[in-house]
Every structure is written in structure tokens, then in C-alpha cells.
């Protein structure tokens, strides 16, 4: 007991929130002792809303929290520890601090490029300077904007987004597609212009079939700005999870929902779809690690863990 405590303490000093990982790692090694696995690390944000500085130290609830520079350092550290990392964002990059009022999102996009984001989507507030306002900043993005259910024909974004993107990491194929929220009644018509919103579930089913069945992706991820769930009968990430067949993970946004652990939803095939969302303003970075077996075993183990890193916990 004493020894294990010591080990854990030492581990804590050297690794990002290592204790839970270590404990789980040991367990999984026992379970899959002889099998070769490939690990994929998904990092994600949503609704960062132009929050570039950390919240000011003014005694308010989020004082000192968030900030792009701290997030970038954490991302770099994880990249140095993990081979296969995907960094994704679920929209509403824009609007919320004077950085956006003065520079129209240029800094936000440039810094996402510096952090090597792999993909993002457009949230409703990404239309706040009009379709043109977003299109103008696209030249600073070295990552794709994925939106399967907006038709941008006859807008400044025409031909500048994709429905999906396939990433290859460590022999894995990961298909990522994007879904946006209905704009009517949420965004000024002048701002979204000729953008047409297409029914998201039909689009999702089309995307996931293509990615899983045709392209044989090992994992299918949806970046969604539909919102986590609603009291009224309205499409949301939960509704989407229940009505799709092959989407493994939905990374959501819009409702600024703080989930400590992803929701596990049974999809149309009776399999598990994870739904996650990590609040807003870059207060959190979400992380999901998948281990893939190279053997065609039918047995699949599922392990869930959460850890809370206190403010005084140094990484």
C-alpha cells in the first residue's frame, strides 16, 4: 500500500494527471496482455468564443482559467507523449471578447493554425460578421472547415468547406464530418445570406455510411454545433446519437454544456455512441483515448475514467 502510494506520487510529478491513466493502463495490459494495440488520442474544444487571454484575475468564478497560451502548452505536452493525436473544434470560434470586435477573428484562426488544429466547423456565431467575415479569415486556417449540412452555393464560402475529412494516424483511418445548427431564427438573415441549412440527421446517416462502409474508417467522428439536448422536440447531439448507425463519437457545442464524462448513448445499431462537450471559452480541453485491437476479436472492453486537476496542480 505504502509502496503504491509512493509510486503514484512520483508518477504525478512526472506526468499529466498520470494516476488514473496508470491505474487503467495496468488493468488494460492485463486484459489484453498479448495483443498489439494502436492508441488514438482525440483532443477537443468547443465555443471558445474569442477567449484568447485567460479570464482576468478579478475574483469572478473563472478568474485565471482558460487562455490560448496555456491550452497550447498542454496540447504540445500531450503531442510529445502520444503518437496519434487529433485536435478538433466544434464551432463558435468567434465572438465574445474585443479581440473579435477589433480583428474579426484573424487571431483566433491564426492561433488555431499555430496549435495545429486538424479540423473545425462553423457555429452560429461564426456568421456574426456575415458569411464574408468568416470567408475572409479562412486564408489563415491550415485546417479544414467541415460542414456537411450547409449548402454554401452563391455565398462567399462556396467551395471553401468540405462535408468530411479522412485522417490517417498510425494505420488507423478516422472519418470526421461536421454538422451546423439551423440558422433561421438564430442568425440574422443578412449574415447567413444564401446559406441553406439541410436536415442534419439525413446528412449524418449519409456521411457515416460513406465513411464507415465505403471508406472503411476505423472510427467515425461528428463535429456538431447542434447543441447537447433540448426540452422541446428539436434535433440535438443526443437525438443525433440515437438516430445514427455508425457514428462513434459526437463532439458537440452551442449549448456550452460542461460534461465531466461523455454521455454514452445506444445508437440505431445498438452500439455505443459517445457524446461529449467541454463547456465554453477554452476553460477545458477534452481528451478521449481509443485503443484499437489488431486482432479480430469480438470482445471489446470499455473503460471510463475521469479526473479533476485542481488549480494548484502543476503540469
Amino acid at each position, binding site marked *: 500500500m505504502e509502496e503504491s502510494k509512493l509510486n503514484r506520487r512520483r508518477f504525478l510529478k512526472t506526468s499529466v494527471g498520470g494516476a488514473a491513466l496508470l491505474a487503467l493502463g495496468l488493468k488494460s495490459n492485463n486484459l489484453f496482455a498479448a495483443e498489439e494495440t494502436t492508441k488514438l488520442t482525440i483532443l477537443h474544444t468547443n465555443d471558445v468564443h474569442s477567449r484568447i487571454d485567460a479570464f482576468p484575475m478579478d475574483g469572478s468564478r473563472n478568474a485565471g482559467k482558460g487562455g490560448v497560451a496555456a491550452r497550447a502548452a498542454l496540447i504540445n505536452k500531450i503531442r510529445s507523449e502520444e503518437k496519434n493525436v487529433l485536435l478538433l473544434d466544434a464551432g463558435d470560434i468567434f465572438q465574445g471578447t474585443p479581440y473579435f470586435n477589433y480583428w474579426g477573428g484573424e487571431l483566433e484562426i491564426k492561433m488555431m493554425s499555430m496549435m495545429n488544429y486538424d479540423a473545425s466547423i462553423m457555429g452560429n456565431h461564426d456568421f456574426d460578421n456575415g458569411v464574408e467575415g468568416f470567408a475572409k479569415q479562412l486564408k489563415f486556417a491550415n485546417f479544414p472547415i467541415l460542414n456537411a449540412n450547409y449548402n454554401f452555393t452563391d455565398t462567399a464560402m462556396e467551395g471553401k468547406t468540405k462535408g468530411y475529412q479522412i485522417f490517417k494516424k498510425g494505420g488507423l483511418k478516422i472519418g470526421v464530418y461536421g454538422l451546423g445548427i439551423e440558422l433561421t431564427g438564430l442568425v440574422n438573415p443578412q449574415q447567413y445570406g444564401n446559406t441553406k441549412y439541410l436536415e442534419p440527421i439525413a446528412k449524418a446517416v449519409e456521411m457515416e455510411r460513406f465513411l464507415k462502409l465505403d471508406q472503411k474508417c476505423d472510427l467515425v467522428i461528428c463535429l456538431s454545433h447542434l447543441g447537447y439536448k433540448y426540452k422541446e422536440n428539436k434535433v440535438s447531439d443526443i437525438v443525433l446519437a440515437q438516430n445514427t448507425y455508425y457514428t462513434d463519437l459526437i463532439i458537440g457545442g452551442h449549448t456550452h454544456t460542461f460534461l465531466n464524462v461523455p454521455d454514452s448513448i445506444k445508437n440505431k445499431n445498438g452500439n455505443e455512441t459517445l457524446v461529449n462537450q467541454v463547456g465554453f471559452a477554452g476553460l477545458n480541453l477534452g481528451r478521449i483515448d481509443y485503443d484499437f485491437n489488431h486482432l479480430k476479436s469480438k470482445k*471489446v472492453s470499455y473503460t471510463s475514467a475521469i479526473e479533476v486537476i485542481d488549480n494548484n496542480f502543476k503540469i
Partner: protein
Amino acid sequence: MQKLRFKIGIVTLAFLGACGPKLQLAKTEKQLYPISAEMPEDSAILSFYQPYKLKLDSIMNDVLAVSSKEIKKGSPEGTLNNFFADAMYDSAKEKGIEFDVAYTNSGGLRISLPEGNIYRYKIFELMPFENAFTRVKFKGEDMQKFFDYIAESGGDPISGARFTIANKKAVDITINGKPFDVTKDYVVLTSDYMANGGDGGVIFSKNIERKDLDYKLRDAILDYLAKMNKEGKKLNPVLDGRIKIK
């Protein structure tokens, strides 16, 4: 060990179909990393945005007002709701704009205001949008529906009117101290965003007259704070029962 708490969840076994992708998903782990003040910061990012930060700091850090308490959003009524709507009302009247009721949507108020100094950047964060005022005239029956729309959402920032929510409908409405008269037309001062039907505000399409004004909501808040400051007044918005629930 107190610094780090962790829970290990259950290990379950499930079965997947044999067909499909070449690799099988074996294990999933999830973590959440709160970004805290003590974390190291990336120097490339810091030096990239430093010039922009200095520019903003030079124009956004002046103290516009002092608040005697934290000002928060609430439902059916909140101190932030009342502050915001009263500021809209007061500044628009100062400009000579004619209307009966000032209104905006609760979702448009993006942050709380702290106790103490209110810096300029806080007002940008409270009202980051470039929304401008719009005057919307309703027939009496649609004015009732406008109040019902607020009642259904559980209460929104409003100034110049009082009412009670009963079964998601607005009752006992008074407008500037006088009982609501369904035979009269009324003018609501709101944002162009709401007048365009934003935030589910389809009622605004029923207007019989609309006039867009060249006066931004954020500027109205800034003007109101300047006036308070000039008069030596601290911010101290109160709940005055303008929206009640039966």
C-alpha cells in the same frame, strides 16, 4: 494525493459485429483538462498575440463605472436583466427616441458584471454584438402576444412594463404605470437581431411599422454608464418585481 482525485469507472464487456473496419475498438478513456492559471503557457502563442493584447489593453482597461455588487442574469427577473433594459430605455430616451417598452433577449447578455470596477472590456464582453436599436410597432393584440412570448421563455430583460406570468401567459400588464390597453398600438424598442426574428422571436414579424436606428445597444450601455459616472452614482440595480410568476 489530495491534489488529484480520480474515480475509476466500471469495466464492461460488450460485443461488436464481426464485419466492418479492419481494426476493433478495444478501449476508450476520457479525460477533461481544466485550463488553470498555474499551467505553463506556450511562448510562441504569447509572443504572437502580445502586440494585439497591448493595443486592446491601451483602449479597453479604463474604468467606466463602479458596481456595489455582482450583477447577474436571472429569471424571471435578474439584476443584469434590469440594468441592461433600463440602460437601453434611459439612453434611448436621452436620444429622443420614442417608444413604450425597451426589450432584449436574455440570451444576448453574455457575461455577469463583477462587483467593483467595471472596465470597458467587460461591456464588450457583456454585449459583444454590433446589434443596433430597432423600433417595432405592434397592434394591441400582438403586443399581448409579445408579452406572452416573454412569459413563455420564463422572462427576459424589459423596461417600461410590468407583468405577471401565469400558465406561460402574461397577465396584469402595466405599461409605464398604466394598465395595458388591447385597443391601442404600442412601440417596442429592441435590437435589429430580435426584430429580424432572432432567438425564436417570430412575433416580431407581426409589426405594423419598423424603423431601424443608427444606435448600437453597446453604445447605449456605454452612454448610460458615462451618465451614472458623471452623476457620481454607483451601479446598484435591484429586483423590483417587474416580472413575477404566479
